[in-house]
């Protein structure tokens, strides 16, 4: 069986920016996995492995390199037209003035360069409609989260076998 990782990114305290957490919670329920008591705790070890982080950091590259397939989950801004998008990802290093902005493609580029491994990867993102200081999703993004969950469940099934 392929080793799969579903990596959600976002901040629960910034409303729709935290949509990935809500999607992971829904996935855990569908996959019969335990949901941690808080986003600061880890999901149980399983395949697919669920992981939620505030933001992508370079040290994640080593972990990502150990998987066969990775699904990144995030919110997106109104810069992107589609309400829900699913993208195939390739390693690509994106420059940033700051350490604080790492893209999934850059993580893959680091995995490739440092650990010589690039899992098959996709990004599933939903449009965030509000990014205020709140823990509640906007109604529009909450609805999109349900759709995204189904897309990812399908990905899990398609990527099951080696």
């Amino acid at each position, binding site marked *: 069986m392929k080793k799969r990782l579903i990596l959600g*990114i*976002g*901040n*629960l*305290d*910034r409303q*729709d*920016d935290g949509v990935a957490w809500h999607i992971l919670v829904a996935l855990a329920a569908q996959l019969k996995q335990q949901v941690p008591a*808080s*986003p*600061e705790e880890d999901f149980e070890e399983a395949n697919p492995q669920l992981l939620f*982080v*505030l*933001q*992508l*950091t*370079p*040290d994640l590259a*080593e972990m990502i390199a150990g998987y066969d397939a990775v699904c990144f989950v*995030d*919110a*997106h*801004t*109104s*810069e*992107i037209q589609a309400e829900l998008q699913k993208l195939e990802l390739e390693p690509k*290093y994106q*420059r*940033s*003035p*700051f*350490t*604080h*902005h790492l*893209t999934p493609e850059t993580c893959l*580029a*680091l995995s490739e*360069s*440092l650990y010589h491994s690039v899992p098959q990867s996709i*990004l599933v*993102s939903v449009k*965030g409609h*509000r*990014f*205020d*200081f*709140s823990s509640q999703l906007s109604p529009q993004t909450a609805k999109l989260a349900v759709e995204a969950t189904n897309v990812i469940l399908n990905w899990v099934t398609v990527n099951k076998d080696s």
Partner: protein
Amino acid sequence: MVAQKITIEPVTRIEGHAKITIRMNDQGKVDHAYLHINEFRGFEKFCEGRMVFEMPLITPRICGICPVSHHLASAKAGDEVLGCPPPRPASLLRELMHMGQIIQSHGMHFFELAGPDLLLGWDADPATRNVIGLLQANPEVALKAVNLRKYGQEIIHTVGGRRIHPNFAVPGGVNKALKAEERESILAGLDEAIATTQLGIQIMKDWASKNMEDINKFAVLKSGYLGLVTPDTGLELYDGQVRLIDQNGTQLEKFDGRDYLDYIAEHVESWSYLKFPYYKKMGWPKGVYRVGPLGRLNVAEKISTPLANAELKNYKALNGGKPVEPTLYFHYARLIETLFAAERVRELLNEPDILSTDILNTHHDFKGVGVGVIEAPRGTLWHQYWAKENGQLERVNLIVATGNNNWAMCEAVDSVAKTYISGPQVTEGMLNRVEAAVRAHDPCLSCSTHAVGQMPMEVEILDPEGHLIQTIVR
């Protein structure tokens, strides 16, 4: 030239973390460059109504790179609000975690961000002018850098139980003691961490010796300097008094961090959401100061650990004992601090109390207000809370490290733009230098959101009439 007021329209709450606007004059030179921070700071309001014991878990979500700093500052503020000073072993453990944070943050910054600037050059091909290019050019150095960051992260994980958002420091102490085998595992990696840091210092010195012209014209700013110090004016990163010196190195103030509002005020500009802290008595803008590695090594007269102290003497000699002013020396100062942090890890682990289980003071003597101050990797960080008797917060004030350096970053961007940019078309190499001016400060720009499509930085070039000539997104 028609004067134009630059304002930010908050169309959405996230427009990108930062924007640089470069206004050209009629001669094709830079008239002024502005660094606008677009991220709206609302965490203080959001925290009102929360319980004080929740704050060490909430405030780390301000940032995923420096959560430990917020976590510890928050716990320290909570210690005071609830009147429960931590036992000494708990303070040692908190400081140990903090040193892990310094090592991972500073290590990552130098090797993965500044490294490409210094080792590959500002004018190098953009396709390789990054850490991947560094890996290809110098794989041994790149892997050592990765291991240095990992080491710092492992200290945080071992001490606190989690790498990113530790649930460790609480008002009154910490909730996890250190086991003997954990102590040994941290000690085991220490020599390599020190060796890698010293390698970084040598890289910096070698680069500096070949690039003195750039160092001496790249954002060399006059300012005050602020940071925590020990009672004998040594470098202090966890707990100490605040020392403020002027541009000549003369002490202006030495005060208890709790009293910061008596000394520091915040100036507001219409073109940035980030305020500009300054020294009240000197007013704005004379009272501006710099924090972070450059600021701290300028206010400190010594370092308690031998290797770092030897490097501090070299650093002080750069300007004959007076404050070191060139912005590019932030990188050198950052490495000296990393060396101190690694040596301090050894000192802490050799303390008999480090394995104690006396780690939590549960006796409360409610005070209602509390300040936690700490030296985050980027500079002095303040958390202040006002609470009702039941522990519910009525008011929160944060002065984040990068906020203290807001003036410095803006001034550095303006200075570098004026030094290196000419003509209406801005080249990659010119922009790389402007970016390096921001990057030297290792800013943490309230990056609590990271949605796809959100630009980390946007640069706009305007003509004398304020019309847009060129937009570059990075």
